[in-house]
């Protein structure tokens, strides 16, 4: 299970991306609706002890089992403007991959465990098909039960939202866990496959474990291969069909099957990484370029040797030691505060301890920064006293403090459970790996058949005491140490980091406030910069020219009075006229810089006249079905003018292409030139690249984004997006 993590966070001011849509409350609503539709009927069926394969119970069960997809439809129905969907691309790759990845684990397991008698596989498959009414029945059954009834929910609704918000790894973990949780009641219903396995059994346990690699494979076919929800349905169907057709192969078979699923997920992850590092990767999100992942740490398959892994393990120890104290702080202060609230004074306790919890937040933030290389911005400082009057209101209304409370409680459980699992895996892995050595010191044990063994008993009457078994134990230990343990450490640390980002940093609205503040500053600085530039242009241009005109005229008057040669004076006056005309041109240019008159006739007219005045070959394509508002038009015009000026002045380009398009949300601009490239968001104001920074600042003021691709040597390609922001 390896994954590339893309984190979204407060974008820097020079590249403000559109923030990820808030997905929390729709997700909670989805979960609620899903549980209502599924678990209530499940509970009824469970208490009435009905067989879910017969009569009315079968219909109720089928409806309840469709809970995930039904709730997705409900959610889409409620919010029709919701535009996050996983769309399928037309391709032959994802269908093949989905079928192969779905069927492979079951088929390979069956082949391995029935290698002695391959005909029994086909015989079993035939009997199953006959049992559900022929091939058509089998197809219908495998397609509806599971794929159609669940996938619209899991992969159609939940997955894209989680991925946008949390990245790959967390998505897989959450969907895997949620998926397992949803299945829980099925273990108590008569006639389900889960009941046959039993909850507390090897197969039951493996069922839950297998959902995680499976979720990853699902994520891969639907997102990376761009199969969308349909790929998920196909994969699920393929999986169900193969699972149903292949004969059962017991606990060992289930173990093999789960292992194969992990192998498949690992293979898929490897492939994904290859893909994402290859340059042909097309940005799915329009802002993918501009939101730079701060530190996209990659998990490596053999991670035990990495610093990253050991830092993570160290972090687990640190939080394991810290967690009890934080937990006690939060719980005890809350208990005392709420208990005393009835008597009086309790609220004062909380009004003190809640803001004070920010210190805990700071400690955990620094710990994460130090050991997880996860820098979480601090929440905004406490509101000044004049904003919130009263000690109580100020203390109790401190949202960041309350979030730290939540963090202390949740992270306590995460630290204890994650730490315990991680340490256990470490011990078990190390123990198995070195079993061949230390097992000789164990006392001999007697099996049921009376034989004596020296070694760990791994099943009733079975001991690791033969060389092949020792080797297998060492291999298993190595697998745990090198693959499973680091994976768990990595996953736990990601969860810690994710929890930290949610609870210890600024909240969504606070982040927006910070972003607005940043963009306001950018706007102020930018307009200041523009005024300075205008003043300098006036000083160096028209002012100096008019001084020259005055000087030349004075010179001419003086010469006439002195009685100089009229021809000389005429020459002087002619050159004065030239300067005056140049002044006029300069003033006109400056006025156009303040507001181009052509902009009154629309952006296309203004850009065309701009392009016509450029000293290079330009190609303009503007497609604007709706005329944008004047503010948008003006910013779009200046962006293009600035980029065109850069192309001429700095890039020494000979060709320029300007493309302006429009969608319902805003305006997209692409300006490309064939110049020498190397444009960057420099801070220097003396060179033109400072203009690029000013442009980014101006765009930030309207929540626009800019992404610049300008390798040294060129070409330069700049993509700008200006959202309407509700203004038509």
């Amino acid at each position: 299970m390896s994954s590339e993590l893309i984190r979204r966070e407060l974008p820097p001011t020079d590249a403000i991306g559109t923030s990820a849509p808030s997905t929390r409350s729709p997700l909670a609503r989805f979960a609620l609706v899903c549980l209502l539709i599924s678990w209530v009927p499940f509970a009824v069926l469970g208490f009435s002890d009905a067989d879910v394969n017969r009569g009315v119970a079968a219909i109720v069960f089928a409806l309840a089992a469709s809970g995930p997809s039904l709730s997705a439809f409900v959610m889409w129905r409620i919010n029709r403007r919701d535009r996050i969907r996983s769309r399928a691309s037309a391709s032959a790759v994802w269908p093949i991959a989905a079928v192969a990845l779905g069927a492979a684990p079951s088929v390979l397991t069956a082949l391995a465990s029935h290698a002695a008698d391959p005909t029994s596989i086909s015989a079993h498959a035939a009997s199953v098909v006959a049992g559900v009414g022929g091939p058509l029945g089998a197809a219908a059954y495998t397609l509806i039960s599971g794929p159609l009834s669940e996938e619209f929910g899991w992969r159609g609704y939940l997955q894209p939202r989680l991925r946008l918000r949390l990245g790959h790894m967390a998505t897989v973990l959450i969907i895997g866990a949620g998926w397992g949780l949803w299945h829980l009641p099925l273990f108590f219903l008569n006639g389900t496959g889960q009941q046959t396995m039993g909850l507390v059994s090897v197969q039951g346990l493996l069922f839950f474990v297998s959902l995680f690699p499976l979720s990853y494979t699902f994520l891969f076919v639907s997102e990376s291969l761009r199969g969308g929800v349909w790929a998920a349905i196909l994969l699920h169907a393929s999986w169900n069909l193969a699972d149903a057709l292949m004969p059962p192969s017991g606990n060992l078979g289930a173990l093999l099957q789960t292992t194969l699923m992990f192998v498949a997920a690992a293979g898929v992850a490897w492939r994904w990484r290859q893909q994402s590092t290859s340059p042909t990767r097309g940005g799915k999100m329009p802002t993918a370029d501009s939101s730079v992942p701060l530190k996209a740490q990659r998990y490596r398959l053999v991670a035990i040797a990495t610093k990253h892994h050991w830092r993570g393990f160290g972090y687990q120890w640190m939080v394991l030691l810290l967690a009890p104290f934080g937990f006690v702080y939060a719980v005890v202060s809350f208990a005392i505060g709420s208990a005393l609230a009835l008597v009086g004074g309790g609220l004062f306790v909380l009004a003190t301890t809640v803001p004070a919890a920010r210190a805990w937040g700071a400690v955990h933030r620094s710990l994460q920064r130090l050991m997880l290389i996860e820098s979480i911005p601090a929440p905004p400082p406490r509101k000044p006293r004049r904003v919130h009057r009263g000690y109580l209101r100020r203390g109790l209304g401190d949202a960041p403090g309350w979030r730290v409370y939540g963090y202390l409680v949740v992270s306590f459980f995460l630290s204890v459970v994650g730490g315990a699992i991680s340490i256990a895996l470490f011990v078990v892995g190390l123990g198995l790996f070195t079993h061949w050595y230390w097992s000789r010191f164990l006392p001999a044990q007697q099996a049921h058949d009376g034989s004596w063994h020296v070694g760990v008993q791994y099943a009733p009457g079975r001991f690791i005491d033969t060389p092949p078994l020792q080797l297998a134990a060492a291999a298993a230990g190595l697998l745990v140490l090198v693959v499973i343990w680091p994976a768990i450490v990595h996953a736990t640390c990601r969860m810690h980091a994710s929890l930290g980002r949610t609870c210890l940093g600024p909240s969504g609205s606070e982040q927006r406030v910070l972003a607005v503040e940043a963009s306001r500053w950018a706007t102020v600085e930018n307009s200041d910069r523009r005024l300075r530039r205008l003043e300098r242009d006036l000083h160096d241009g028209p002012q100096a020219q008019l001084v020259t005109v005055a000087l030349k005229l004075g010179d001419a008057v003086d010469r006439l009075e002195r009685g100089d040669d009229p021809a000389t004076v005429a020459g002087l006056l002619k050159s004065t006229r030239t300067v005056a005309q140049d002044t006029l041109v300069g003033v006109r240019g400056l006025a156009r810089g303040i507001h181009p008159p052509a902009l009154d006739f629309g952006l296309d007219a203004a850009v065309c006249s701009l392009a016509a005045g450029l000293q290079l070959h330009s190609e303009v394509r503007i497609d604007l079905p709706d005329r944008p508002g004047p503010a948008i038009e003006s910013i779009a015009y200046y962006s293009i003018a600035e980029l065109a000026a850069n192309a001429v002045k700095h890039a020494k380009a000979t060709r320029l292409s300007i493309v302006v398009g429009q969608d319902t949300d805003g305006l997209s601009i692409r300006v490309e030139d064939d110049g020498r490239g190397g444009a960057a968001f420099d801070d220097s104001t003396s060179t033109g690249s400072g203009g690029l920074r000013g442009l980014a600042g101006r765009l930030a003021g309207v929540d626009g984004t800019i992404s610049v691709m300008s390798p040294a040597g060129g070409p330069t390609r700049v993509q700008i997006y200006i959202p309407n922001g509700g203004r038509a």
Partner: protein
Amino acid sequence: MKIGIAEDVAILRDALAEALTARGFDVCIAVGDADALRKEIEHQGVPDVTIIDVRMPPTNSDEGVRAAIELRQRHPGAGVLIFSQYVETSHAHQLFGSNAAGVGYLLKDRVGDVREFISAIERIANGETVLDPDVVSALIRVAGGRFGLETLTPRERDVLALMAEGHSNTSIAAKVSLSIGGIEKNIASVFTKLGLEQSNTTHQRVLAVLRYLQG
């Protein structure tokens, strides 16, 4: 007379050079920034008067003033005419503080009257101090609240300003249409009211007035 010009706007620099050359001046240096001026002076020697624009590249702030101060430190006798687009009093102290002989500060507007301009250059070359009337009135405005100024009559204020600009008694008398005797009386009154030491030469008088105005 040898003239140097440091002005970053080329057309203005050329026009200045042309007007001065036509009137018999030897424009030996015409450059666009302070560094070039420094090099040319090393190369060609110090001109009698160097006209320096305040704002020049690279930072377009006060390169010209700094170049002028540096030039005066190296060559105390060299005439310097600061040439500015705006009235700025903040540099006056540095410029006129220690030795104001042969220092001028004119707004670019003045070039329209070529004769005045030429005479200003000549006065600077003679070691006089030339201040733009606008700069003087700005200095008086800045000094506004200082004790003594408000006791002056309007006429005495005019005389003070003209003194600061570097005019002689005769010239002041012509400007305010008074007899020389009347002017002398006014000047004496100004000096008494402001508590200044009586000075005999025009130049010393300018310095005294400037010192007073700058506090």
